């Protein structure tokens, strides 16, 4: 599913984060957002997901039916992992499967995508930061949505997990999905475009 953004602006706490941002993402394409801290990468992703107010500009889905909204097509993975510490690893993921209407059989496969299968019975509270992140990211393997919005997905991941994430993203792009990700790590994906939020602001200044 493609996405067209036209003259998007973002204001946070009376500060103009970015202005007149226009870009397009087509199916099978990945757009990498780069820029220093505070340049608006997370804000842009939240705006695209519909979790942050759009003060000015438009976000349109390409090829969406009339009643499809952006919430129906995105899978958002923010910098928080959305994990409940008292629940076990597999209970955490099973809940999201049920809540997003995915068959429970998929849970085991999704856990294996980040090699978490053997930790399934442990309370999520005892996991390390990297393992928690892997559990959060395993929702990408669980829930089938065409547009992924990833906010610094590689934070606290080890090399093997970064490679696993790269594989998952490549498979998603190959099946016609699209990804917008804020990351500074090279995931080894071909044909990605980069959007530098700082250069946009610099050009306006």
């Amino acid at each position, binding site marked *: 599913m493609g996405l067209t953004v036209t003259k998007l602006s973002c204001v946070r706490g009376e500060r103009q984060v970015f202005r007149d941002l226009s870009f397009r993402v087509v199916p099978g394409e990945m757009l990498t957002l780069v820029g220093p801290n505070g340049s608006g990468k997370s804000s842009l992703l939240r705006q695209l997901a519909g979790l942050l*107010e759009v003060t000015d500009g438009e976000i349109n889905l390409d090829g969406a039916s009339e009643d499809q909204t952006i919430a129906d097509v995105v899978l958002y993975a923010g910098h928080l992992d959305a994990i409940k510490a008292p629940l076990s690893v597999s209970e955490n993921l099973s809940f999201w499967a049920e809540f997003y209407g995915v068959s429970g059989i998929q849970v085991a496969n999704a856990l294996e995508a980040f090699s978490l299968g053997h930790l399934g019975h442990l309370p999520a509270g005892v996991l390390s930061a990297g393992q928690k992140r892997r559990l959060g990211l395993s929702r990408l393997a669980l829930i089938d949505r065409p547009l992924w919005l990833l906010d610094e997905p590689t934070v606290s991941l080890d090399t093997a997990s970064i490679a696993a994430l790269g594989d998952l993203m490549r498979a998603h792009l190959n099946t016609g999905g699209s990804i917008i990700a804020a990351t500074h790590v090279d995931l080894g994906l071909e044909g990605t475009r980069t959007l530098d939020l700082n250069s946009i602001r610099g050009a306006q200044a």
Partner: protein
Amino acid sequence: MNAFLSLVRRDVRLATRVGGGGGMAVFFFLIVLSIVPFGIGPDLNLLTRIAPGMLWVALLLSALLTLDRLFQADQEDGTLDLLILAPQPLELTVLAKAVSHWLTTGLPLVIAAPALGLMLNLPLEGMLPLMGAMLVGSPALSLLGAVGAALSVGVRRGGLLISLLVLPFYVPVLIFGVSASRAALVAVPGDLGGQSLLLLGAVSLASLVVGPVGGAAALRVAIK
């Protein structure tokens, strides 16, 4: 429907696990009601007269105590974002949160009420009307509370704000609830107890609509 039930199940499970804070409301209810007789003194007639009122006030305060975590816990760990983006309408998600709040707060308190009523010298014939009234009225506390909890989701230590927002709306529940619970104890002209119970039911049914719709609208504003 599956999504709705899975959220209720998850929240009840979270509340009953260690550190989930599920027992907090019940223990607060117990503590408040066990110190009342010490504060009032050993006047049994007086205790009987104030018992329904005290039980209802304690029920209200216990419900308020746990409301501030209703959405905030989910907001802090990023769960709320994913709940909002899910296919299920946000109104149903708010309803599921309110239902699980009632199952972990309202229902245990209703069950505990007769035992604590004994401490306040509540006569046995007053127990059933009290439990009935609490069963009918307590869902309104969770449903109306969900609106307050949603409005203050972005506020750190929002408990005080929730109390200020929600308490005025709790007053009808308190008035009709106490009135319905007392009817069996005090001779009142006409069928005041029955009427109060009906009005209490009306408040609960109205909050069944107001709570989810208002809560969802408040959440949409609060996260942006």
